[in-house]
């Protein structure tokens, strides 16, 4: 409930405010969004599994975003930024797919 509310508020604010993203943050924003999406879907899965814990969700959300960003940052420092970005996106994408399939199983079983 709170998650959906926050999502709606965030999207509405983002559409209407349209701030200038700092250039330093620009390449990391898509990665952050994908990582956060993964965390959100993981939370949804655990909710259906009845093992949802808000603390775990908050921590996993933050750690997901920070890890993804740091990984891409590291890649940029090492000169393999785009490759590592692709790797992160692929891994997160796989996780998102598995989460979605788990959610789907729960939804259609019940």
């Amino acid at each position, binding site marked *: 409930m709170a998650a959906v509310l926050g999502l709606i508020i965030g999207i*509405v*604010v983002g559409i209407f405010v349209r701030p200038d993203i700092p250039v330093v943050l*620009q390449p990391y924003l898509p990665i*952050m969004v994908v990582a*956060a999406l993964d965390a959100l879907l993981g939370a949804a899965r655990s909710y259906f599994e*009845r093992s949802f814990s808000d603390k775990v969700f908050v921590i996993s959300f933050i750690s997901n975003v920070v890890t993804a960003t740091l990984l891409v940052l590291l890649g940029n420092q090492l000169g393999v930024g785009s490759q590592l970005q692709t790797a992160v996106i692929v891994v997160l994408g796989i996780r998102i797919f598995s989460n979605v399939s788990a959610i789907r199983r729960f939804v259609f079983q019940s």
Partner: protein
Amino acid sequence: MRSTREPHDLLGKLHKQHAQDRENDRTQTGSFPIVRKRGAGRSPNGSSRSRFTTSVLIVVLCGMLGFGFAIQINNPTSSYEAMSEDELTRLISETSTQVQNLEQRKTELTNQLDSLKAAADKQQEVERIAKENEETSGLLSGRLPAQGKGVVITVSKGSKEQIDAATMFQLLEELRNAGVEVMALNNVRVVTSTYVVETKSGLESDGETLKTPYTIKAIGDPQNLQNAVNIAGGVGSRLKVKFGANVQVTSSDKVIIDEVRASRSYTYAKTVE
């Protein structure tokens, strides 16, 4: 030996059976871990507080996610920072090629513009000359009215005898010699083909009968024109002495000759190309 082993066996069997039963009676399914009810042992006050904090945190985090999502969607500009070295090199070479092409195009267009400007200047010059020529020839052929410094000569009717055409024409010739530019005799514009003849009713010029007093409007240097008429033994004195006419020469700063004649259409003469 057998009797001693049997109870041992039985005990072991029982033990195994028991273990198996326990195993079989397990309610845990394996795929779904049992979720224990949480929060039963906690104090209700702290629980609701922490729950509220985490909900707020969730709202904030999800809000940030949505915010970032919306921004990313609304940000169509491709960031060069995310590009690899190869892509950037390609981009630079493409851009420089484009720049070169555009420079070339610009040079071409500039040349074209220059030539057009030159052509326009030439055209303007031609037009100016044509206009000048038109004015000059218009004045010369009597097609355009003229004004300027000059003299107005009034010749009254001769008291001794009628002024003849030759003397009148001589007057015009004298004025021409004195550098007259445009002149008119009564209401006849004097051009190169103007003639003066005598008829029964008096002088006639270019098909029009001239009435006395004759008025000659002439544009030119007033001093010269005046001298040409009034010179001793000239046409002025001849008019006075021979014909008894009264000749009056008035110099004026603004003589207006608005007598015009239609330009002649040539049947045989053509300009040389």
